[in-house]
C-alpha cells in the first residue's frame, strides 16, 4: 500500500508563517543585534548646511577623546581613492566630502571608537569650518540662469541639468491633440517622502587581516549585487567578500542603495583590523538615505466629446538631489514612468522628463513601488478623475469606457510596454459592487444637499513589476534574473536557497509553498534561506515586487527539474516505464494502478541509496530565471471620505481595494501586504512629507515632523480580489507587495477632490493636510 502524504501548504493555502517563531519570541537577528568579538562602533559627522565649501576639518580634539581608535576624513578616504563611489544611475556620489557639501546631512567625517556613546561624543568634537553657499531646493530654482552650480566636481557639468528623456510619439500625439474636443490638464507635485522602515540602515564590516576576507553584515535588500559593486569599487577579489543580510526590519526600497557609511565602515575595518559597526539613527536615515518621488508633473489628456481618450502628453521635472543616485535598473532615465497611460487604451502618448540636481539628499528609491510607477499611476488616475469631473461623466463610467479590453491582451501600449494580461472591467465591477457604489452616489448627493462635504474616489491602477527581462533591465550590467537552489535531503526534507531577501514579505513560507506545490514536500519540511552571498545562489534581490515574479518562478522551475529526475528514480523503483508514470499529490504512480506508487520522500531516499545505473546521485539543482516580460498586476480601489468644513479634516469612511495579482500563493500573506500598502498609501496621501526651507534645511527629519500613520488614524480596509493569471509566469503569479502603495494615493486624493468638486476645487497636492483643505474651502467661500 503506497503512503499517502498530506501536502500541507500548497499554493492557495493561507498557512501560518514559519518565520514568526523567532520574531514573536524576540529572537529575530537584525543587524544591530549582532555583536562580534572586539567590535568597534562608528559615528558619522554630517553637514549642517545644504551647500557649503569645506574650509578645514580639525580632528585633533576628537582623536584625543576616550575610546577613540580613528577619525576618518574625506582626505583620508581620497588617499585610498575611496572619497567618491559610483551610483546605480551611472553618476558619482561623495563617500566623505572633500571639496564641499551638497546637501544637509551629507557625510563629512567618521569616528571609530570602542563604544557607540564614545564614537558619538568624539564626533561632536570634530570642528569643521564651512563657507556657506546659496542652496538650490527645487528643479525650478535649479534651472534658473545664475543658479549655483551644484556639481562643480564634474568636468563637463555646466548647469544643474542631469538628463532629458522621452518616450512615445510626439508627432502622432500632437496630431491627436489638434483634433480633440476636450483637453484636461493637471499640474501636480508628488512630493518627496521617505520609506522609513522601522529599522534604520546599517552594517558591520569585519575584514580579517590574516585571510583578507571581508564579511559585511548589511541591511541590504540586494546582497549579491552589493557584493559585486564592492568588488568593483574596492578592487577586493569577489570570493573574499561575503555580504550577509540578516533579518531586515522593513525595507520598502530604502535598503537597496549602497550608502557611504557602508564604504567607510569597510575601509575602517580594513585599516584597523577589527570589526566596525555602523547603525544610523532615525534622523540620519531620514535626511541622508534614499528618498522617494519628488516629481513635478504636468499631464494633458485629450478626449473626444463622448469621453473617449485620444492622447496623453506628460512632462515631468525630476528633483534628484545632489547626486543622481536613483536606485533603478532600467535603461530608462525616469524609471518605468512611461507606464503612465495606465489601464487605458490611449492610442498615442508622448512623455518627456528632465532631471535636475538640487541641494537635497540623493536617492530616488522605489519606495514600495516599481521604479517610478507610483508617480505615473498617480498622475493618470488623478487626471482621469479630473476629466470625469470636467466632462460631467461619472468617474467609474469614464474609466470603463476607456479601459483596455480583456480581449486586447497582450496589449501594446503607446509608450512601448506589452501588458501580459488583465480584466480591468471585472475588477472595477467587483469593487463597485463591494462598495455599493450606486447607492453611495445617491447618498453623497443627499448629504451634499444637507451641506455635508463628502465624496468618492476611484483609482484603477496598472502596475508593471517583476524586473525584468535582461534586455532592458540590469544593475551595472548584471542582468535582472533571479535564482533558486533546491536541495532535497535523503529523508525527504529540503533546503531552498534564493538570490532574493525578505524584509517581512514572508519568503520562508511563500517559497516553501511553491516547493510543496511542485514537488509535494510539505512546506514545514522546506527550510528557506536567503541573504548570505557565500551560500545562496546569485540573485538581484527583493524590491519592485520582483521576488515572486522572478525568484518564485525560479523556485517552480528548479522544483520541476527535480521532479523530472524523481520520475526516473520512481520508474527504476517501480520497474515501470517513465511514460507510464503519473504525478499527483507528491507521488508518482503507475497509470491505472494507483497503489503502485512512490512518494517524493521515498524517491529522495533512493536518490542517495538506490539510483538507476549510470545516474548521478543526489536530488538537487539550481535555476536562474530571466523573465520573458514584466508582470502587470492591477486593481480598482475606491475610497469614501467626509470632510469637516470647519477644520478641513478629512476622515476616510471606507476603503475598498480589489487587487488582481494573478495566482495568490499564500492568500493570508497577500492580504497582509495589501493592508500594509494601503496604510502607507494613506500616509503618503495625507501625512508623510519631506520638505525643505529656503536654506535647504530638511523639514521632516524625525518622527515628530515626518508623520507616519498610527493605528488610530489608519482606515479599516475592505479587500476583494479577481484572478487573472500571468500567461508567462510558471505559476501565473504577478507579485503584489506594491500595488496598494501605487494604486491607493490617487484613490484617497480623488475622493477628496470629488468631495470638493462642487466648490470648484480641482487639485490639492499631497499630503492633503487639513490646512490645505481648509484653505481651499475658504477660498471657495464655504468655511463655517
Amino acid at each position, binding site marked *: 500500500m503506497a503512503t499517502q502524504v498530506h501536502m500541507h501548504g500548497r499554493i492557495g493555502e493561507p498557512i501560518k508563517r514559519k518565520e514568526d517563531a523567532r*520574531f514573536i519570541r524576540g529572537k529575530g537577528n537584525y543587524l544591530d543585534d549582532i555583536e562580534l568579538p572586539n567590535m568597534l562602533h562608528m559615528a558619522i559627522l554630517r553637514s549642517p548646511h545644504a551647500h557649503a565649501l569645506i574650509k578645514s576639518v580639525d580632528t585633533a580634539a576628537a582623536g584625543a577623546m576616550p575610546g577613540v581608535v580613528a577619525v576618518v576624513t574625506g582626505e583620508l578616504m581620497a588617499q585610498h581613492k575611496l572619497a567618491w563611489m559610483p551610483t546605480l544611475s551611472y553618476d558619482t556620489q561623495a563617500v566623505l566630502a572633500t571639496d564641499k557639501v551638497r546637501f544637509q546631512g551629507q557625510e563629512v567625517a567618521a569616528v571609530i571608537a570602542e563604544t557607540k556613546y564614545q564614537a558619538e561624543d568624539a564626533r561632536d568634537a570634530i570642528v569643521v569650518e564651512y563657507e556657506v553657499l546659496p542652496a538650490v531646493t527645487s528643479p525650478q530654482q535649479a534651472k534658473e540662469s545664475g543658479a549655483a552650480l551644484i556639481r562643480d566636481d564634474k568636468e563637463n557639468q555646466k548647469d544643474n541639468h542631469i538628463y532629458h528623456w522621452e518616450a512615445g510619439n510626439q508627432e502622432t500625439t500632437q496630431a491627436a491633440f489638434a483634433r480633440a474636443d476636450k483637453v484636461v490638464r493637471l499640474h501636480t507635485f508628488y512630493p518627496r517622502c521617505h520609506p522609513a522602515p522601522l529599522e534604520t540602515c546599517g552594517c558591520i564590516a569585519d575584514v580579517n587581516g590574516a585571510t583578507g576576507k571581508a564579511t559585511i553584515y548589511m541591511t541590504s535588500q540586494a546582497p549579491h549585487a552589493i557584493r559585486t559593486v564592492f568588488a568593483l569599487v574596492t578592487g577586493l577579489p569577489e570570493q573574499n567578500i561575503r555580504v550577509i543580510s540578516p*533579518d531586515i526590519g522593513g525595507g520598502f526600497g530604502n535598503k537597496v542603495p549602497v550608502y557611504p557609511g557602508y564604504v567607510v565602515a569597510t575601509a575602517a575595518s580594513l585599516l584597523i583590523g577589527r570589526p566596525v559597526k555602523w547603525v544610523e539613527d532615525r534622523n540620519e536615515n531620514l535626511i541622508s538615505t534614499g528618498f522617494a518621488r519628488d516629481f513635478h508633473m504636468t499631464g494633458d489628456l485629450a478626449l473626444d466629446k463622448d469621453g473617449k481618450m485620444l492622447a496623453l502628453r506628460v512632462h515631468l521635472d525630476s528633483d534628484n538631489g545632489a547626486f543622481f543616485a536613483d536606485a533603478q535598473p532600467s535603461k530608462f532615465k525616469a524609471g518605468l514612468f512611461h507606464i503612465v497611460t495606465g489601464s487605458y487604451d490611449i492610442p498615442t502618448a508622448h512623455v518627456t522628463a528632465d532631471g535636475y540636481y538640487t541641494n537635497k539628499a540623493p536617492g530616488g528609491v522605489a519606495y514600495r513601488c516599481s521604479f517610478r510607477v507610483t508617480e505615473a499611476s498617480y498622475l493618470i488616475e488623478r487626471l482621469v478623475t479630473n476629466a470625469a469631473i470636467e466632462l460631467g461623466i461619472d468617474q467609474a463610467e469614464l474609466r470603463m469606457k476607456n479601459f483596455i479590453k480583456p480581449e486586447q491582451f497582450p496589449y501594446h501600449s503607446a509608450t512601448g510596454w506589452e501588458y501580459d494580461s488583465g480584466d480591468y472591467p471585472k475588477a472595477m465591477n467587483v469593487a463597485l459592487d463591494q462598495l455599493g457604489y450606486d447607492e453611495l452616489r445617491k447618498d453623497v448627493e443627499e448629504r451634499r444637499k444637507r451641506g455635508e462635504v463628502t465624496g468618492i474616489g476611484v483609482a484603477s491602477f496598472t502596475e508593471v513589476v517583476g524586473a525584468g527581462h535582461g534586455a532592458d533591465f540590469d544593475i551595472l550590467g548584471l542582468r535582472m534574473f533571479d535564482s533558486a537552489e533546491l536541495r532535497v535531503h535523503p529523508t525527504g526534507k529540503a533546503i531552498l536557497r534564493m538570490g532574493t531577501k525578505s524584509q517581512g514579505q514572508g519568503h520562508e513560507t511563500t517559497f516553501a509553498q511553491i516547493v510543496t506545490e511542485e514537488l509535494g514536500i510539505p512546506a514545514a519540511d522546506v527550510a528557506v534561506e536567503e541573504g548570505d552571498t557565500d551560500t545562496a545562489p546569485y540573485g538581484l534581490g527583493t524590491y519592485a515586487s520582483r521576488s515572486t515574479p522572478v525568484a518564485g518562478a525560479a523556485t517552480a522551475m528548479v522544483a520541476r527539474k527535480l521532479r523530472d529526475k524523481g520520475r526516473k528514480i520512481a520508474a527504476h523503483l517501480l520497474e515501470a516505464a517513465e511514460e507510464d508514470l503519473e504525478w499527483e499529490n507528491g507521488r508518482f504512480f503507475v497509470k491505472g494502478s494507483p497503489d503502485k506508487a512512490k512518494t517524493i520522500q521515498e524517491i529522495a531516499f533512493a536518490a542517495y541509496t538506490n539510483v538507476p545505473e549510470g545516474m548521478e546521485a543526489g536530488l538537487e539543482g539550481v535555476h536562474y530565471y530571466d523573465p520573458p516580460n514584466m508582470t502587470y498586476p492591477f486593481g480598482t480601489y475606491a475610497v469614501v471620505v467626509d470632510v469637516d468644513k470647519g477644520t478641513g479634516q478629512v476622515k476616510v469612511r471606507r476603503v475598498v481595494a480589489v487587487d488582481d495579482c494573478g495566482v495568490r500563493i499564500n492568500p493570508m500573506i497577500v492580504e497582509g501586504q495589501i493592508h*500594509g500598502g494601503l496604510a502607507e498609501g494613506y500616509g503618503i496621501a495625507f501625512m508623510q512629507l519631506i520638505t525643505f526651507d529656503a536654506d535647504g534645511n530638511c523639514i521632516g527629519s*524625525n518622527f515628530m515632523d515626518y508623520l*507616519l500613520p498610527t493605528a488610530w488614524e489608519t482606515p479599516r480596509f475592505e479587500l476583494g480580489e479577481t484572478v487573472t493569471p500571468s500567461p508567462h509566469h510558471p505559476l501565473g503569479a504577478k507579485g503584489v507587495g506594491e500595488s496598494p502603495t501605487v494604486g491607493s494615493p490617487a484613490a484617497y486624493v480623488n475622493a477628496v477632490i470629488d468631495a470638493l468638486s462642487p466648490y470648484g476645487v480641482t487639485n490639492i497636492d499631497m499630503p492633503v493636510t487639513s490646512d490645505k483643505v481648509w484653505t481651499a474651502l475658504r477660498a471657495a467661500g464655504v468655511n463655517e
Partner: protein
Amino acid sequence: MKVTMNVNGSERAGDVEPRVLLVDYLRTNLRLTGTHIGCDTSSCGACTVLVDGEPVKSCTILAVQAVGRNITTVEGLAQGANLSPIQVGFHEEHGLQCGFCTPGMMLVGASLLERNPNPSEDEIRWAISGNICRCTGYMNIVKAIQHAASARAAAAAEKPGVPVTAGAAGGGE
C-alpha cells in the same frame, strides 16, 4: 553606577554610566536584543518594555531610573516553551511581517488586556497608537490582540479562579 532591577523575573545587577538609556542597557549589557530601537525620539514604540506592568518606551528613560523596578521585555512573555496568548494571537492572525515593531506591540497588547480584558477595536487602536508598524496596516495587529483576549477569556472560563495573564510575566499586579 551600580544598578539592579528585576528583568523578566530575575534580579539583574550591572554597572553603567548615568547617561545610559534603559534600551541600551537591556540590549548591550544584558544582551536582550528583542527590544528594538526605531527612532530615538519616543515616537515609534519599537523599544517598548513594561515597567511594573506599564508600557514604557525604553529610549525615554535612563537605566538608573529603572532601579528596583520590574521590567518585562519580549523575552519574558513566554513561560518556557509555552507562548503567551498575545504571542499566539500575533502568529495566528498574521499580526507581524518584518517583526521589528512586534515586541513593542505585543507588550502593549498584553498590558492592555491586563487592564481591560475585553477591549473594543477603538480601545485597541488607541492603546497601540504610540507604536508604529510600517508593514501590516494594523488590521491584523488588532485581530491578534482580539485573538489573545478571546483565548484569555476561554482559559478563564475553563479554569475559574486561576488568573490568566496575557504574558506580562514579572509585571507588577
